[in-house]
Every structure is written in C-alpha cells, then in structure tokens.
C-alpha cells in the first residue's frame, strides 16, 4: 500500500472524520500543540542560547541540559501526540503539503542534530562544562538547532495555507513533484 493510499484509508476512518468535523476537539488539539511548543522549543532554545554563550553564562551546560531535559521531553511528547492527531484529522491534504514535507525533513535533520550532539559532543562535556564560549562543534549544534526548530515552526504554520494544494491547479511542475500531486495529464 502506498503512503497516499494509506492516507486515503486513514481519512475514511471514523476517528479522522470525527476529529476533522469536531467543533472543539480540533482547536483544542491545535492549541495544545502551540502550548507544548512554548515549553519544548522554549527550553530547547535556552540550551541552544547557552551553547552559544548568550544566556545563563554562569550555569554549567550540563546543568541546563540535564535539569531541563525531562520537561523538554515532556513537551516533545505532547507535540508529537497532538501533531499526529492533527495529521490524523486531515491526512491526505497534509501528506500532499509541501510545507508538511519540508517540516518532516527539518524534523529529521533536527533529530540528527540532537543525536550528533549527545553522542559526539555532550560526551566530552566535562572538558568545557563551565565555558561561556563552548567548543565550535557545540556552538554549531546550538545554532543548527535554533535554525532547524525555527524552520519547523514556520513550515508547520504554513501547512494551514493552501497556495500549493494539489487541488489548486495549475501548479509549477516542481510543486506537483514535491507535493506528490496526482495530476491528470491533459491531452490537447
């Protein structure tokens, strides 16, 4: 089964239709997504700014990372759960949104960045825990994180807009390709 077929099946399920058509549930899920963003991206941003030496300068990096981590994870879990529900409510259109697809790519990159930071950079934290200006690799990870989460927020917000939706044709060939639109070929 292709991903599109899966989304078509998902869109026909009772739960998806109910969530899509609900008066309050959908806005509640979306609002919760935003509230979790304040916590999750907020705390992630603090760690990034600390890595860049721009705030909490006297606080050891390990303290910022470890003390905030449980709350950052909690925020992330809520983001994922509400995000999955938002997708579940509008599967096909979201799947064929270039903004959603960009967001997924940015999310993967942000995940790689986190993995790289924790497996390569954070392991040697003892050497620079108290430094205001952290090693280049740590600063790079902090900056990459700021840029990627920013891009994820912007792309996420843009999913709501329909400029590049598949059912609005003609679109540039690149858009149709990137969004995976199924465009019937017109024979002259």
């Amino acid at each position, binding site marked *: 089964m292709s991903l599109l077929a899966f989304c078509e099946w998902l869109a026909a399920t009772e739960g998806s239709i109910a969530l899509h058509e609900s008066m309050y549930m959908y*806005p509640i899920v979306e609002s919760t997504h935003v509230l979790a963003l304040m916590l999750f991206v*907020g705390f992630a941003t603090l760690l990034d700014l600390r890595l860049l030496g721009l705030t*909490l300068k006297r606080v050891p990096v390990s303290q910022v990372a470890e003390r905030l981590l449980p709350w950052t994870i909690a925020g992330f879990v809520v983001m994922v759960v509400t995000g999955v529900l938002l997708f579940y409510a509008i599967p096909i259109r979201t799947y064929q949104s270039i903004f959603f697809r960009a967001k997924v790519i940015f999310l993967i990159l942000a995940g790689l960045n986190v993995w790289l930071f924790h497996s390569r950079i954070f392991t040697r934290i003892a050497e620079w825990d108290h430094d205001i200006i952290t090693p280049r690799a740590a600063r790079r990870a902090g900056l990459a994180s700021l840029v990627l989460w920013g891009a994820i927020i912007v792309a996420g917000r843009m999913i709501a807009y329909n400029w590049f939706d598949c059912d609005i044709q003609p679109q540039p060939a690149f858009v149709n390709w990137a969004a995976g639109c199924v465009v019937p070929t017109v024979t002259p």
Partner: protein
Amino acid sequence: MLLPFFEWCETLWLGQFVVGSNWLFPVIESVHLLALALLGGAVFVVDFRMLGLGLKDRGVAELANDVRPWMLAGLCVMVLTGVPLFLSEPIKCYYSTAFWVKMTTLPIALVFTLTLRARMAQAAPVRGTARRQQLVGALSIALWFTVAAAGRWIGFS
C-alpha cells in the same frame, strides 16, 4: 461602543498593507510564533524554578536576571508582530470572544510579569517566600498559557 475604534483601525495603512499581500499575514504570524517559543522558554524557566523544578541548583534571582533580555526581546517581537496581525482584521477580532479573552489576560499577564513576578524573583529566600514564589510561578504559567491559547483561538472563529 468600541466598534467605531475598530472600524477606524481597519482603515489604517499598515493593516491594509498586510491584507493586500498573500504572504505577509502568514509570515508575520510565523515570526509571532517564533517569538512565542522564545518567550515561553524565558518565562517558564523562571516559573519552573519558582515551583522548585528545572534549574533548581540556581537561585531564582540569578535565572530571572539571566533570561530577562530574552524575555523582553520575545515580548517586543510578539507585540510588534501582533499589532499588524490585529490591524489586518480588526472587525473579525471585535466579534471574536477569543480576542477579548486575550486582550483581558494579556495586560494582566504583562503587568503581573513586569511587577509582582519580577519583584518576587528578587525576593530574599527567607521563610515564607518559597510558598509565595510557588504561587507566582504557577499563576504566571497559567496566565501565559491562557494568553497563548486565546491567541491561537482567534484564528478559529
């Protein structure tokens, strides 16, 4: 009673400029959201500390002082982007309950954060302070969550 004011707002150049563009509203909205994340981090890290959570090895005052520039930066960007968003649809806002919830809780949250909470963050850690700090921290989280949720809700009407 306030409707004429909102109607006047609708005639302003800035709002019309936003309305005239396909892209401007979403772009400003995105910056509004980016600043919200920054504000959330800078506000909650102190609120959590007041509740005895998160960066509990540090003093409340130290944390509050460290993140204050970022909190103020977040607030400034939120207001600067919020105004054109409002000016692009004042009449819709006028009839939106969520907008009025936000306009009620936002000044409360602002004044509370810049006065009572700021003072409480600097309070010497003597007996009885901790309890009041917990209350202030919890109240701050509740207030800012309400402002954010109401803000998001304006878009649903």
